[in-house]
């Protein structure tokens, strides 16, 4: 299965305080371990 990482990189997510972040900034300069959790429960 292929993942469109460029599309994922441009995706904007929010932190728990509501601030927006471009997802791809997490791996723009270093490798990133990205954990998709089911939920926070």
């Amino acid at each position, binding site marked *: 299965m292929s993942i469109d990482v460029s599309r994922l990189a441009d995706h904007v997510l929010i932190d728990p305080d509501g601030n927006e972040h471009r997802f791809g900034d997490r791996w723009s300069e270093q*490798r990133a371990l990205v954990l998709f959790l089911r939920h926070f429960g």
Partner: protein
Amino acid sequence: MTCRERAGQVRERYEEILSTGAGVVAIGTGGKRYAKAFIEDLQVPFEVLLDEDGSAAEIVGTNTVGIGMAVNPRAWIAGARAVKAAGPQGKTGRRPMQLGATLVIAPGDQLLYVEFEEYAGDHADLDELVAVLRG
């Protein structure tokens, strides 16, 4: 509960992961309040972001809980293990059927590793992940 278990596993090896030069980010589907409680309760040292509408998970193509999970012995074993490690299930948020996934992404949008959960608690092997992060 399996999410809390997973967060605890990564927390325990966080310094080792950082020593590879990599960063860690977790993405969950709950709301801000649940995310803050998750971070505080588990003393999560890494960044946590919210994917409230599941759009990021949709791009990745995470699996969802199916009928097969209910009859999969490995899922029951993983559930029991998670309860022992992280306590009973808490609030599940708006997308309780979504399963997790683990990725390693390098600069230039290079996908180095991906593993999708087939059932709750089907976590990617951390030793393997650390090896990928080391390159």
